[in-house]
């Protein structure tokens, strides 16, 4: 998926999906198809032929509806991408075919007939007499009427746990068989319909559905962020030389979290000029270092997929792979084991990386001494430089940021002016780690003005 042509095609489709009319059309389709799959999966697991057939029929009805609607709607909305234009033409032809029309009519009329069947069970001891319903009176309403006056405001609904397994049991099946005898015609047609199985569905439709879900899921994920004013853009994809130039980017996952907690997001610019390869991130804790690393990792990864990346403007290299090394918190007490595990993972990353890879190291080797962390860091950075890969390396070792001209030193900072900002700007600067009490107070939103405003807004 690192072929620039394919990415361009994908970006085009994705841009179309971002226009509300196209989006609405595809959404409706995807929702119906999802429900359809649930029904068909259920049908697969059932054994009683009539029940299996009913689930299948319901699935086919959804499928027919979804296809017809998509074919119709795609013609009504403006489309710019080759991908969706071709799909629309194809679907209109398919939905208009005689075979499809016959299928669609049959499932609908069968559905109406079957679900209109009402019946009564007269139970006495071990006998269940099955009749068609003849308008007998509801005794429950008589009982309920007696107690109506005790009903209190706000009383909750009363649910019983009824064992509703999906599958009919043998008594229910026997009752069903009686119903089939009482109303044989629609059930016979149902069996005929069910015999078609998977052949009823057009493979190209299913494939489109799978692929479009992927686009939609991502767009949905980032939609609230865009609504909140954060920028996303389609990166221009840079073949060598591998420059990075991203304006106002951010960690999508953190931004989502902040949006939930009403925090606001600080964006960062990321720039690597010609010849620069590695960001080394240092600075005070809680200052946004990890966030910065994750941002770059997400940029590289998301750009590869042809999707809009976090940022107002972006030029990014097309990466072949993205590797990450983040701390795994399993055995914090076993420092040696942890270091060993990290080194093993780092080795695998370096082995798998090419000159077109992106590597993300977050606080790696921090479980060891400063001396070891420095030596290991140098060793890893040297190897990345030798590969020519792009990397971000978060560390508490300031010295690593001065290792090589291809290394860019960026430093997390504390933002004094806006206390609600929980991620902080990371800027190009020489590493020197110091923090002051008052700066901290500002960081926590505890200056006189901030406090007073917060109490009496």
């Amino acid at each position, binding site marked *: 998926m690192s072929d620039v042509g394919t990415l361009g095609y994908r970006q085009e489709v994705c841009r179309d999906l971002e226009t509300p009319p196209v989006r609405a059309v595809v959404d409706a389709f995807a929702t119906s198809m999802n429900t359809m799959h649930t029904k068909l999966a259920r049908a697969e697991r059932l054994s009683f032929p009539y029940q299996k057939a009913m*689930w299948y029929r319901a699935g086919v009805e959804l499928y027919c509806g979804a296809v017809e609607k998509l074919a119709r709607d795609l013609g009504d909305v403006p489309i710019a991408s080759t991908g969706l234009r071709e799909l629309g033409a194809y679907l209109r032809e398919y939905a208009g075919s005689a075979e499809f029309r016959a299928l669609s009519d049959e499932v609908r009329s069968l559905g109406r007939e079957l679900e209109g069947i009402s019946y009564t069970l007269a139970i006495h001891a071990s006998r269940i007499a099955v009749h068609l319903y003849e308008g007998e009176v509801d005794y429950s309403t008589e*009982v309920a009427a007696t107690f109506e006056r005790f009903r209190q405001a706000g009383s909750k609904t009363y649910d019983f746990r009824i064992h509703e397994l999906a599958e009919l049991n043998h008594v229910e099946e026997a009752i069903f068989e009686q119903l089939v005898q009482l109303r044989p015609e629609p059930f016979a047609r149902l069996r005929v319909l069910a015999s078609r199985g998977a052949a009823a569905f057009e493979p190209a439709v299913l494939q489109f559905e799978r692929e479009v879900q992927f686009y939609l899921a991502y767009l949905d994920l980032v939609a609230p962020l865009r609504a909140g004013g954060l920028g996303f853009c389609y990166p221009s994809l840079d073949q060598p030389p591998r420059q990075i130039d991203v304006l106002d980017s951010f960690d999508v996952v953190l931004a989502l979290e902040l949006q939930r907690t009403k925090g606001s997001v600080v964006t960062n610019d990321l720039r690597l000029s010609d010849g620069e390869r590695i960001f080394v991130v240092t600075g005070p804790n809680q200052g946004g270092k990890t966030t910065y690393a994750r941002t770059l990792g997400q940029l590289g990864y998301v750009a590869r997929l042809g999707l809009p990346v976090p940022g107002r403007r972006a030029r990014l290299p097309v990466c072949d792979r993205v590797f990450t090394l983040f701390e795994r918190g399993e055995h914090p007490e076993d420092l040696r084991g942890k270091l060993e595990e990290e080194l093993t993972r780092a080795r695998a990353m370096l082995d798998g990386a090419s000159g077109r890879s992106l590597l993300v190291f977050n606080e790696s080797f921090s479980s060891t001494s400063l001396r070891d962390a420095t030596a290991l860091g140098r060793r890893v950075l040297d190897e990345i430089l030798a590969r020519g890969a792009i990397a971000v390396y978060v560390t508490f070792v300031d010295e690593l940021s001065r290792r090589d001209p291809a290394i860019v030193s960026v430093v997390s900072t504390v933002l004094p002016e806006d206390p609600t900002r929980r991620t902080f700007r990371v800027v190009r600067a020489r590493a020197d780690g110091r923090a002051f009490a*008052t700066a901290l107070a500002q960081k926590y939103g505890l200056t006189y003005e901030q406090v007073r405003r*917060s*109490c009496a807004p």
Partner: protein
Amino acid sequence: MRAYLLFPDRDPPVETPSGPRIEELRRDLDLPPVLDAFAAGDEAIRTSVERLLLTLLDDARLVRYRQEAVADCLAEPDTVRELYRIVGDALEAERRAWGWLERSASTVLYRSLRVMAGLLDALRTMRRIADGPGRRFRSRAFTGLFERLRTELDDRFFDEAAGHLKRLHDEDRRLLSARLGAEGRGVDWTLRTPRAHPVPLWRRWVPARRDRHTVIIADQDETGHRILGEIVDRGMGTAAVALGRSTDHLVQFLRALKGELAFYVGTLNLHDRLIASGNPVAFPEVASTGGPSCVAQGLYDVGLALRLARPLVLNDLDAGGKRFVALTGANQGGKSTLLRAVGLAQLLAQSGCFVGARSYTTGLASGVFAHFRREEDAAMKLGKLEEELSRFSAIVQAVRAGGLVLCNESLNSTNERDGSEIATQIVGGLVDGGVVVVYVTFLFEFADGWRRDRPEGSLFLRVERLADGTRTFRLAPGPPLPTSFGEDLGRRILGPSPALEPPAPIAG
């Protein structure tokens, strides 16, 4: 029918406030032993009291509504305890009746009657109380409850309930209807009354030609019979719902009543313990305006009284109209105790309970927050100062004008200059934002600077020491002094040291 013992017109809150701020308050004010005394071993009381202590009333009229009711309880403790016991026993019996059985329609149906009979007994006893000792109550809360018990508890409902259950129970033939659902199973199950006309009864029940579509379950087919029961169950659903819901309403009423009574029984328990410890209690006067600045005579920490079970040193505190109260002076001189006493009294006052004091006046607080120094937090990820600041930050986010913030040695984790600077900023912002701050501090620069810059609206109390150096555990008005009295402790515990100068004599 509602209890309305806690609010004249609505149900009490169903959630106990929770979250980190509440946890800090619980821990810093040392609420657990106080709740223990309220509860006297009864978890329901603990839950109820805790919820109401932490949910500050926002209306002085509601405070008086409860105070009247508490006064009623203190006058008629046996009646209130008896009522509480009856309700509790009835609920316990109801709970046992359900046990582990699943709530299927038929279990609900067949147990409703038995449960209802038990509840009915309790209700009859309650009505007897309402007719007898209940007439001696004077508070709006209790007279209202007893009045409702007298008028709304008639026997008709139970007769009718029994009648329906009997019919449903005796029925051994069922007529159900359903509709074929999309999933192949029946939906909309309904219990039907067999039609008297025009189909003759024999045609319903006697297998006839018309009934040739009949499923017969073999005698040995146990599963089949169980399933048949389940099918009947579906049809019985709506009838069972109607009956079950009626029972539930009664149970819900009794639960609510128990929860509300629990608070009052709790106040009786606490009252007994405090009186036994030889300390005074008083109903506070709670003003609807002015914020939580208190004027107290004979104030003490209820938690300490419970622990020591003896008369305590009582403090007077005239912080009326003051937004900032600084408590300074030697270690172990009673500062933290007084701070807790103020916080706890505010919670008690705003729940409608009496407080630990001879007399107490305060206003409504919009919230109570505690910021106490932490020493032991091993899991702390942030540095100590950052940890303190992050807690302050959270409090600042939560507090509003009219709030009460209790600080105990806050910002001691950095040097005095930085600590004082930050404290001045935070407390200044809080006080000017309309918050009342009571602050135990060794930060001389902070306390002294405040005294010089803004003496009006502030109160400075210092640990009282007699001429011979003994402490009285009282705090008296006095400016902060530059040195804390840690040397005292050092001298007492470590013995005299040539490095330690004797403390300067203290004036005022």
